């Protein structure tokens, strides 16, 4: 390709200044970018309004696209369902027969549990659902793991609310817009969830790895052995997540820090339940109410 000859400005002052100012603006753009980056790293929610405003426009489009994709994908699924209905039926019958005695036992235990709790006068808090929505898109080109929920402030979704799917915890709401909310998924490198082992209550934390899995690390104990298949549920510490939501299963045995696979594999066709913050912090007193009004001097 021949060289572009735009640098020869000739004697035109207008053209000379035009090119000069173009380059000044280009450098200024880089400087503005650096400033924005510093500001947004010190105060991440600062630009949430504009970001979520854009997301409120794109989320319904993504939802529509998801519906179309789902409809297209349901055709081969339906054919498959007819072909394998018989085998699936037999497998489900076997599973039901195996599960029935377990269900009877669980019912007895649940009754016992209720009775004992009533004896101890334990006050139960059940988290209230806020809204049922869907995850419609995600930050597929970035290293962060965010998903976009197609419900926002109009539906009562607020930052900090936990989001769970049918299988387990999905993440928590980070920013909200009018009709969309950004969800920090469990596998995000900056997500930390306090968990406990379901069989003995061993406390641990689940830290996102960024590659779809989590690291499970023991807290306040060293030389803790994790076996493959150990199930971890939320512990309720911190007051954000209700206790007992399934989070992850240990993939390979290890000590102190092991790889865990999350139960919820968030998919666009799954529904996500947004719940209220389990035990919200008491609201900070407003300065006007906190400070006694000075009498005028």
């Amino acid at each position, binding site marked *: 390709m021949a060289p572009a000859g735009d640098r020869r400005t000739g004697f035109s002052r207008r053209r000379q200044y035009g090119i000069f100012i173009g380059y000044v*603006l280009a450098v200024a753009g880089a400087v503005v970018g650096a400033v924005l980056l510093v500001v947004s790293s010190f105060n*991440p929610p600062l630009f949430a309004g504009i970001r979520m405003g854009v997301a409120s426009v794109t989320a319904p489009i993504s939802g529509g696209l998801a519906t179309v994709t789902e409809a297209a994908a349901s055709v081969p699924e339906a054919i498959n369902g007819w072909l394998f209905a018989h085998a699936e039926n037999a497998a489900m019958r076997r599973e039901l027969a195996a599960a029935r005695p377990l269900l009877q036992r669980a019912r007895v235990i649940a009754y016992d549990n209720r009775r004992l709790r009533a004896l101890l006068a334990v006050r139960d808090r059940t988290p209230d659902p806020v809204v049922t929505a869907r995850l419609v898109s995600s930050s597929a080109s970035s290293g962060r793991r965010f998903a976009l929920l197609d419900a926002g402030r109009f539906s009562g979704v607020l930052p900090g609310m936990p989001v769970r799917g049918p299988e387990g915890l999905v993440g928590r709401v980070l920013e909200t817009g009018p009709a969309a909310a950004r969800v920090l998924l469990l596998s995000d490198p900056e997500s930390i969830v306090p968990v406990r082992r379901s069989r003995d209550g061993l406390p641990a934390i689940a830290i996102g790895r960024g590659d779809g899995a989590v690291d499970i690390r023991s807290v306040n104990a060293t030389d803790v052995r994790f076996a493959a298949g150990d199930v971890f549920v939320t512990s309720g510490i911190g007051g954000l997540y209700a206790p007992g939501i399934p989070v992850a299963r240990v993939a390979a045995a290890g000590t102190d820090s092991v790889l865990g696979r999350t139960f919820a594999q968030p998919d666009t066709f799954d529904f996500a339940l947004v719940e209220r913050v389990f035990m919200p912090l008491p609201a900070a007193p407003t300065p006007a109410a906190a400070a006694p009004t000075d009498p005028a001097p």
Partner: protein
Amino acid sequence: MTLTDHDPFAQPLPPGRARALPWATVIGGSTMTIVPVIAAVPILPPLGLLVLLAWRLLARFALRPWAAAPLGFVDDLLSGQPLGSAVLLWSLCFLGIDLVERRLVYRDFWQDWLIAAAAIMFCLAGGRVLAVPLTAHVDGAMLAQGCAAILLFPLAARLVAWIDRKRGMA
């Protein structure tokens, strides 16, 4: 298109629209993050950056030298990166390409591709350092993402060349 279809006197796009077209295509590339997929790893190539580089390398007068910053701002709003990362990295890419252009006077598509590959890798590595903590396990996925983006560049270049031919002289 046959010869009889071709109308040499057809009006190209009006200048305003022809000037807006490159901006619209770059923003369209950035908007591809709204596809309904919940990705577990970064798999989507940075399509907005690809289109931007193709415009800059193939038709350098289509975008002003300062266009990278506002386009990067739009990309940041859609991509989930911290606001300002694409503004900074894309602007640096434009300045870097200007420097290379000064040295490399005559260049071919292969050189364009090489420059684009370097710019893509620079932006992805910069975005990774700026957005994700260093302990995260995303390097392998991002390397694959970068390779996919580099391999997609000729496609983006074809698309941009086609649009550029359609829109006529702006």
